[in-house]
C-alpha cells in the first residue's frame, strides 16, 4: 500500500501567506474588541474628569447661585425618577396585557401581524413622539387636568393649579409610557411564548380556564423575565431626552404633576448644553455622569436578575 504525500495539488496548509492571513485576521478582530472596551473606558473616564470641576466647585462658582452641585442636580434627579416611575406605572400593565394578547389570546394566524404592529411603535423616532405630545396629547389632557385640579385638588399631586397648555410632567410621562411600551411588550412576549407547552396543557386538562392557566403556568414561569423587562424599560425611560424636552415646560421641583415645573436630567442637558461654556458645561456633563450611573445601575440589576434565573426560566 502506497501512501501518497499530502501536498502536491492541495493548498499547502503550512504556507506562509495562509499563516500570516490567520494572524492578521485574528489580530484585527481582537483589536476591534479592544477598541470597544477603550471607547467605553474613555466615556467613563472623560465624564468623570470633566465633571470634577463642577463636583468640587464651592459657593459662588456655580450658575443659578447654587451652593453645591448636588443641590443643583438633586431636584432633576427626583424629576427624572418621578417621570419614569409614572411612565412605568402606565406602561407595565398595558404591555403585559398586550404581550399576553399576542402570545395567548389572539388567533395564531394574526398574532404575528399584531406583533409587527406593536413593533411599529418602537420604530417611530422619539422626536416625533415629543412633537406629538406637545401638539396633540398635551392639549387633549388639559380638560382632565382641569377636572383633577377642581375635584382632587386636596391630593398634593394635583394641588396648585393646572397647566393651560398641558405641557406638564404627567403628559411627558404618558409619552414616555408610549415609548417604553413596545420594549416591555416585546421582551415579555418572547418569554410568554417560551412557557413549556406541557405546563399549559396540564393546567387546561385539569379544567382550568384560560386565565387560570395563565396565572398558574405562564406568569410564574415568566416572573423574572417580566421584572427584567420592566427594568430595561425603566433604563430607557430614564435616559429618554427629546420627548421630555419637547413636552415639558421646565421649572422648579414640585409635587404637582399637572402644572408646569419639574425637570429631568437629559432634558436639562439637551436644552442648555448647546449654549453652555465654562463651568456651566462642566455642570451639565456632571449631570450626565449622574444619569449615566443611574441607568447603568438599573441596567445591571436587570441583567443580573436575568442571569440569576437563567437556568430555570425562559428569560435568557
Amino acid at each position, binding site marked *: 500500500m502506497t501512501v501518497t504525500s499530502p501536498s502536491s495539488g*492541495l493548498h499547502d496548509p503550512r504556507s506562509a501567506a495562509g499563516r500570516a*492571513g*490567520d494572524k492578521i*485576521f*485574528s489580530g484585527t*478582530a*481582537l483589536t*476591534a*474588541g479592544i*477598541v*470597544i*472596551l477603550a471607547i*467605553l473606558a*474613555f*466615556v467613563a473616564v*472623560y*465624564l468623570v474628569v*470633566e465633571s470634577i470641576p463642577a463636583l468640587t466647585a464651592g459657593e459662588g462658582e456655580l450658575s443659578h447661585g447654587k451652593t453645591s452641585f448636588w443641590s443643583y442636580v438633586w431636584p432633576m434627579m427626583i424629576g427624572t425618577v418621578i417621570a419614569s416611575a409614572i411612565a412605568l406605572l402606565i406602561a407595565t400593565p398595558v404591555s403585559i*396585557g*398586550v404581550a399576553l*394578547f399576542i402570545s395567548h*389570546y389572539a388567533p395564531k394566524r394574526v398574532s404575528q401581524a*399584531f406583533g409587527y404592529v*406593536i413593533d*411599529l*411603535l418602537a*420604530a*417611530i*423616532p422619539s*422626536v*416625533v*413622539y*415629543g*412633537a*406629538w405630545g*406637545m401638539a396633540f*396629547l398635551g392639549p*387633549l389632557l388639559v380638560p382632565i387636568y382641569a377636572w383633577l385640579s377642581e375635584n382632587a385638588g386636596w391630593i398634593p399631586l394635583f394641588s396648585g393649579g393646572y397647566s393651560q397648555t398641558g405641557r406638564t410632567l404627567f403628559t411627558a410621562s404618558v409619552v414616555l409610557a*408610549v415609548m417604553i411600551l413596545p420594549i416591555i*411588550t416585546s421582551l415579555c412576549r418572547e418569554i410568554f411564548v417560551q412557557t413549556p407547552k406541557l405546563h399549559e396543557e396540564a393546567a387546561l386538562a385539569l379544567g382550568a*380556564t*384560560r*386565565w387560570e392557566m395563565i396565572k398558574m403556568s405562564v406568569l410564574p414561569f415568566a416572573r423574572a423575565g417580566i421584572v427584567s423587562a420592566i427594568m430595561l424599560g425603566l433604563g430607557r425611560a430614564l*435616559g429618554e*431626552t427629546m420627548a421630555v424636552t*419637547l413636552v415639558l415646560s421646565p421649572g422648579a421641583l414640585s409635587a404637582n404633576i399637572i402644572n408646569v415645573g419639574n425637570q429631568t436630567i*437629559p432634558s436639562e*442637558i*439637551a436644552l442648555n448644553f*448647546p449654549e453652555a*461654556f465654562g463651568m456651566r*458645561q462642566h455642570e*451639565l456633563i456632571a449631570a*450626565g455622569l449622574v*444619569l449615566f450611573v443611574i*441607568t*447603568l445601575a*438599573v*441596567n*445591571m440589576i436587570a441583567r443580573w436578575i436575568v442571569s440569576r434565573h437563567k437556568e430555570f426560566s425562559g428569560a435568557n
Partner: protein
Amino acid sequence: MTQVLQENRENIGKSKLIQGRKPRWTWIACLAGSLIVASAIMAVVGFNVAGWAVLTALFYVVSNYAVTRIMENGRKATDQLWTNLVVGAFLVALLPLISVVWTVLSIGLPGLLAPGFLASDMTGITGAVDQASVEDGTAILGGVKHALIGSLVMTLGATAISVPIGLLTSIYLVEYSRGGTFSRAITFFVDVMTGIPSIVAGLFAAGLMLTLVGPGDNVMGFTAVIALSVLMIPVVVRSTEEMLRVVPNELREASYALGVRKWRTILKVVIPTAISGIASGVTLAIARVIGETAPILVTAGVAVSTNWNLAKDWMMSLPVYIYRQMMFPTAPAAPDASEQRAWAAALVLIIIVMLLNLTARFIAKAFAPKKTGR
C-alpha cells in the same frame, strides 16, 4: 329522516356538555346595552367622543362580567373579565400609534407636497417670510434639503465606523474567544453600552472634540458621527453575534477538514451563511440612529444651509430640524408655518425609518440561506 335530524339538533341544544353556558351572542347584547347607556349619559352631560368610548368600554367589561357570573359561574366570569382586559390593553396600545400616524399624515402631508420642500433648505427663510405666508396667504417656503443631507451624511459616517468594529468584534467573540475573561468583559460592556442614554453619548463626543480641537471648531458633523457610533456599535455587535452563533458548526468543520485556514473559513463560509441576518441587523441599527436627536443636537448643532462637509461647520439633521421648528418657530407670532414644516419633516423621517425596517425584513427573508441544496 328529517325528523331525526331535527331531534338531534334539539338534543344538541340541551347537551349536557354545553349546559349552563351563556349563548354566543351575549357579548353583542352587552355591547349594545353599554352603548345605549353610555350614549344616554353622554346626552345628559354633553357629548364627547373620548368620554363616550371610555364609558362604553367600562360598562361593557362590567356587564359582561356580571352576565357571565349570573349565567355561568364565578370562575368563568373572572376568565371573561381578564379576556376583556387583555384585549382592551391591546386596543389601548393601538391608540397612540393611530393618533401619531394620523397627526403626522394630516399635518405633514400638505407640507411634504408643497413644491420645493425636499429641494430647498432654510437659507433666507426668516420670520418675515413666515409672517407673510400667514398674513398674505402666500405659499409656505423653506424645506429640509439641508437636514436630509446632514442626516444621510452623518448616518453613513456612523455606519462606516460602527459596522467594521461591530462585525470584527462579534467575529472575535464567536470564532476566536474561548469564553475567557476578556470575551466576557466585552459581552458585559457591550450590554452596558446598549444602556448608555443617547444624550450621554452626545456629551461624550462633544467634550472629546472640545478637548481635541478646541472650542468653536468642535461643533461639526464628525462629532455627531462619533456620538452615533457609540450608540450604533453595541447594536451591531449584538445582532451580528447572534447571527454568527446560529451558523452550524458542521459547516466550519467541513471547511477545516478540507484544509482551509480559519480566516478563509470565516470569510468564505461563516459570513456568507450569516450575511442576510447581519445585513438586516445593520439596517435596523441604521434605522435606530437616524432617528436620534439629542446626541446630534449637542454635537453638530443647528444650521439653516446645506453642508456636505463632516469635518467643518455646523450641520442640520432631520430630527433636530423637527425639534427646532417645533420648539423655536421661525416666526414666533406665526408658528403654523414652522409646525407644518416640522410635521412634514417628521413624515419624511418616519418614511425613511419604515423603509429601512422593511428593507431589513426583506433582506432577512430574501437572502436567508436555503434550507436544502447547499
